[in-house]
Structure formats: structure tokens, C-alpha cells
């Protein structure tokens, strides 16, 4: 469901505070939909430890028979590439790595 909450005219925007407690660590959840497929990232949740994180992951992310295996990883353990470097890292064209680069005459048959 999608809910819009209107802003009351004249009310100041609330700033968040860090007076809230320490909370449970954040975990990223990966689910293997069925045997033969990769684990896929589905979202995150909070849990005090790995066992609870896996149980919660199962309850939250596989209610509709969506998986046969779950990985949970502390979010802090994830290292990510720098989005500013997206072009430098991922935009290097080497078309000769793809089969469509090559012209094989039809008479040769499937290759």
C-alpha cells in the first residue's frame, strides 16, 4: 500500500536525532529462489545475531515459497564500489569479448 502524509502548513520539518538507542545491527539478506540459481539480494533487516537474522529473514522474505536457502551478511561487512567511478570501472568496451562481434558465414552452420 502507498500512503502520502501531507505536510501541515506552518509546521517545521522534523530533524532526526541521535538520542535513539543503539539498536540491533543491520543485516543484508540473500535468498536462493531454487536449486541451481544464485542467491539474490532481497533486502535488509535488524537482528541481534546471525541465527536470529536467518530466522527473521525466512519469516520476512520467504512467505510466498520464494526460497530454499538464505544467506545473511552484516551490512558493515559489505564493501561497495564507488559510484563516482562507475564509468571508469564499468564502461570499458571490449566488443571482441562478445560472440556477435564475429562474422561467420551461414554455410558453416551453427558456431
Amino acid at each position: 500500500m502507498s500512503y502520502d502524509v501531507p505536510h501541515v502548513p506552518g509546521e517545521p520539518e522534523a530533524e532526526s536525532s541521535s538520542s535513539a538507542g543503539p539498536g540491533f545491527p543491520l543485516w543484508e539478506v540473500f535468498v536462493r529462489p531454487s536449486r541451481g540459481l544464485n542467491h539474490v539480494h532481497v533486502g535488509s533487516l535488524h537482528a541481534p545475531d546471525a541465527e536470529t537474522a536467518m530466522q527473521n529473514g525466512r519469516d520476512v522474505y520467504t512467505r510466498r515459497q520464494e526460497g530454499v536457502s538464505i544467506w545473511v551478511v552484516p551490512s558493515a561487512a559489505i564493501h561497495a564500489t564507488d559510484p563516482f567511478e562507475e564509468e571508469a570501472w564499468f564502461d570499458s568496451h571490449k566488443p571482441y569479448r562478445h560472440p556477435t562481434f564475429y562474422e561467420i558465414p551461414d554455410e558453416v552452420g551453427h558456431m
Partner: protein
Amino acid sequence: MTPQERFDALIAGDEKVEPRDWMPDEYRKTLIRQIAQHGHSEVIGQQPEGNWITRAPTLRRKAILIAKVQDEAGHGLYLYSAAETLGISRDELQDMLHTGRQKYSSIFNYPTLTWADIGAIGWLVDGAAITNQVMLTRTSFGPYARAMIRICKEESFHQRQGYEIMLVLANGSAEQKAMAQDALDRWWWPALMMFGPPDAESTHTQRAVEWKIKRETNDELRQRFVDATVPQAHFLGLTIPDPDLRWDDESERWEFGEIDWVEFWEVVKGNGPCNKERIAHKVKAWSDGAWVREAARAHATKQTRMEASA
């Protein structure tokens, strides 16, 4: 390219902004507010429907209702997770909700007085939310869009189960039919109010639309909802509580009466029928559970220490 130019290009190209991309501070704040309040709405939304779980009239209805409320908790969780990618923690989010600094959709400040209310909520409230929902799967912020796709998939039974309840009641005994009509009478106008103030008065819409956070206006969505829902009410043989409701041949839509904007703002400001109870319930659950969360943290710490010294 400057970071601002890169951001503008992403938006203009209908591409997704991801958590570690540079984004204007206003964009980040607007998103945190919108996603958080959306999440809070789902979480508080457990309460009015949860109110009838123990009294559901059949085992099948009981199971369906528990599953629906469970989904709502799940949706809240996906949204909180999306908000967290923007730099706010779950605990801060809870705190903002409990202290009223962030809000939730006013629709959940109305009481569920009869079983028929559960039907009306599924039909009208979920129906209204769904009107908005598909649009949000195209929202510019990646984690929010992905949460919305997941929510949309799970949502598909929510409205149907509500309408099915209404169908059975409307075709049932005289008392059941009266129960259904009474629920419609009480939930119709609040459902229309879910779409927010009229476009002319909506302060944040303009910018939200520019940033492709919001992709259609309040009035557009509200009209779409009315046009879809009026025939559904007619099929039930129930009367929509609006004497000004009439079909307009020219514009091919249902013209409807004036919404009570005084009530609307009163409820948003905290003076609706159940505002205090909803927050009190949430605060109590959170504070009653503090010792549990503390215990889980303590146990985890002990385990880590044991493993380290092994």
C-alpha cells in the same frame, strides 16, 4: 560532470538514484520523510485490522486477516530498510514516530467498529493505496522503487479479500447488509482524504514531481480512485454516502462532493478519533519490549567475546 549535473542527468534519463550516489540534501530529506512516513503507515496499519483478528468470524477469515496484517508489518520493514540506506537508523525512525515528529497516514486514526470495517478497509483503503502504488514502482530512488515492486506483488490479495468480505455481507442477512452499508458510510470520506489536500494547496508536490519521487498529483489519483470504486459499490448494491455524486458524460468521470477539509487537517494534526491510542499502543509495545532487545544484544555480545577468545 559535477555531482549535481550527474544527479540531474540520472533524473532526466529516468534512471535510478542509488544509496551511495551524490544527491541534493533536500532530495535526501524529502525521501527520508516520505519513505519513513510510508513505513510508519504500514506499521500503524496493523492496529485497526489487528483489532479484529481474535474475533474473525471463521477460521479462513482469521487466517487471511493474520496474513494481511503480517504483510503490513513486512511492508513497513521493507520501507524502513529503504529509508536506512539514506542514513537514518531504525531506532531513530521509531523515535520520530513515537514522538510525533514523523507521521503516518490519517486513515489509520479511525476505529474499526464492526467486522464489516475489515471488508471496507481492504476494499477502500487498500484500493486507494494501490492507486498510488504502481506509480511509486517508477520512483527515482532505487531502494524505494524496489521495495514498492515487492509490496505491489504482495498487495494483490489485500484488496480482493476486503471486497470479498463486502460481497458476502451485502448478499447476506439484512443485518449483514446493514453492517456493510454502515462501514461504507464511515470509511468512504476518510478513504478519499487519503489522497491528501487538493493540488493547489499541496506544498511538497511540485518538487516531489520534479524529482520523480511522486509521479502523479493528489487530485489525479483521487479521481482515478473514485472512478474505479463507484461501480464496485453499485455492484454490491450499496449506496455511497455522497448526495452530490453524479456521472458527468462530458468528462466521463464521477463528480463528487466537497471533502470536509477541516476534519482532514484536524486528523492530520493529531485530533482524530484514534491518534492517541495508535501511538500509545506502539510506544507500549516498544517500551515493553526493551528488556527483550537488551537481552538479545547482551547475548550477542557474550557470544562474540566467547568466539574471540576461543
